[in-house]
């Protein structure tokens, strides 16, 4: 992998964002709207429930912000790829001396920048509006973030592989894939709420351990290393599978001439 070429591809995305007000607004717009919505719903629930669930605001807003980290990381990869498809630039990129690994690394790195900007904005807004301190989680925030970013990368790679195989007809998956996991991943409620059969699915999703772990840290101040280990192990598995699938689909795209068709669609 040539890091210089990765850097240039990252710079390319930065140029695109610098010149597109809509894309820049998008980095803040949806997360901010979600935060406002969840924040006020939470405040309302707390008032109605008269504090029946301690730290409800913290749990839900924390979950919403961390979910956004995962979602934005996945979107960073998939939308960057789709962007090249939409503007019919994909062939220019792959006719240039650029490896698939360099391209994916660039989309991921730029996704990280987007996640960073969104996260800092949300953290500031949540503190200002709801007195929620994201950094109350302290050190635990780092392993949580690492696991969410790796899962975002894995999902982004898997989604890109599927779009590469099925073309633009599958582009709705770019937004749908993370939400397929959300009901089972214990984002806003504990795993114990789910029926036993769904708990099995929940335990196979890496971010379940992050959200369970987050609630544990906020409630008791204890960081569960076993949760961290499970999340990391599953992430390694899914990322490995995702990369294998992407390489396989890229091979298939070369076999069936899909890159050209994707560009000319």
């Amino acid at each position, binding site marked *: 992998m040539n890091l210089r070429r990765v850097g240039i*591809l990252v710079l*390319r995305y930065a140029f695109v964002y610098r010149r597109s007000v809509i894309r820049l607004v998008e980095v803040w717009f949806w997360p901010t709207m979600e935060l406002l919505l969840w924040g006020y719903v939470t405040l309302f629930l707390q008032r109605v429930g008269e504090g029946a669930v301690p730290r409800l605001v913290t749990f839900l807003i924390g979950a919403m912000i961390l979910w956004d980290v995962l979602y934005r990381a996945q979107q960073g990869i998939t939308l960057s790829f789709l962007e090249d498809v939409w503007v019919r630039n994909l*062939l*220019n990129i792959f*006719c240039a*001396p650029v490896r698939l690994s360099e391209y994916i690394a660039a989309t991921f790195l730029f996704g990280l920048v987007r996640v960073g900007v969104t996260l800092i904005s949300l953290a500031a807004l949540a503190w200002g509006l709801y007195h929620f301190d994201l950094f109350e989680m302290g050190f635990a925030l780092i392993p949580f973030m690492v696991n969410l970013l790796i899962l975002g990368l894995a999902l982004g790679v898997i989604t890109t592989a599927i779009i590469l195989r099925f073309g633009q007809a599958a582009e709705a998956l770019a937004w749908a894939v993370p939400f397929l996991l959300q009901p089972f991943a214990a984002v806003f409620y504990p795993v114990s709420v789910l029926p036993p059969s769904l708990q099995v699915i929940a335990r196979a999703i890496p971010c379940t351990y992050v959200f369970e772990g987050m609630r544990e840290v906020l409630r008791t101040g204890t960081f569960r290393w076993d949760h961290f280990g499970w999340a990391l192990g599953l992430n390694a598995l899914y990322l490995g599978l995702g990369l294998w699938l992407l390489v396989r689909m890229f091979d298939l795209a*070369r*076999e069936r001439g899909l890159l050209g068709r994707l560009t000319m669609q």
Partner: protein
Amino acid sequence: MRRCEDAVLRVHELTKVFDGIVAVDRVSFSISRGEIVGLLGANGAGKTTTLHLILGLIRPTSGRIEIFGRDIERHRIEILRRMNFSSVGVNLPPNLTVWENLWLFAQLYGVSRAQERIAEVLELLEIAHLRDARTGRLSSGEMTRVNLCKALLNDPELLLLDEPTASLDPNIADKVRRLLRQIQRERRIAMLYTSHNMRDIEEVCDRILFLHQGRIIAEGSPREILEHFRTRTLEEVFIRIARSGEILVSQRER
């Protein structure tokens, strides 16, 4: 197949089958340094597939492609640094300026003194005044010329051009043809050129390959082709091949 000792591109028995359909059928040819070869054929004849095979975007079912004496499958990245491609069906990000787009591609191709080189190609294509324009706001003719600038950035030794004058008015198309000839003379770039415009082919190409259903059914200089088919224009040859290519294939095979 004509043997070229100084061949930049060698295609040998190239075949591509998509789901049982033969898109490219045992195609063999080579291109020497400084030679412009036209790849002609009706829609679906296999021109674009052949270009994509040469670029390594499609994997051949069988056969071999050597560029600069190296196998494209094994040395794709090194080879791509020394060649380039322009197609009427491919665009650059619309919200970047012409200069930004060219600068980024210059970096990807590892062009030294990128700024000077960009200024040079913009002058060459007579679009220096568009330097700060966003590519999304250009006319299709201007966009085609920006694409050609991108294709010339790395001073390629092999240039693949897929219908480079398709969206140009006759005046600009003429300028582009002259420019390609000039580049060929001065820099001795080898070019593989597809077009439906027979005037392009007659004016620009040293040699023509006619494809029909994935096979080369006629090959030679424009003059040789006209003599062979006993016609006055390449357009007549094109129509004859498109309508009775099967017969010509069997005659050639006999």
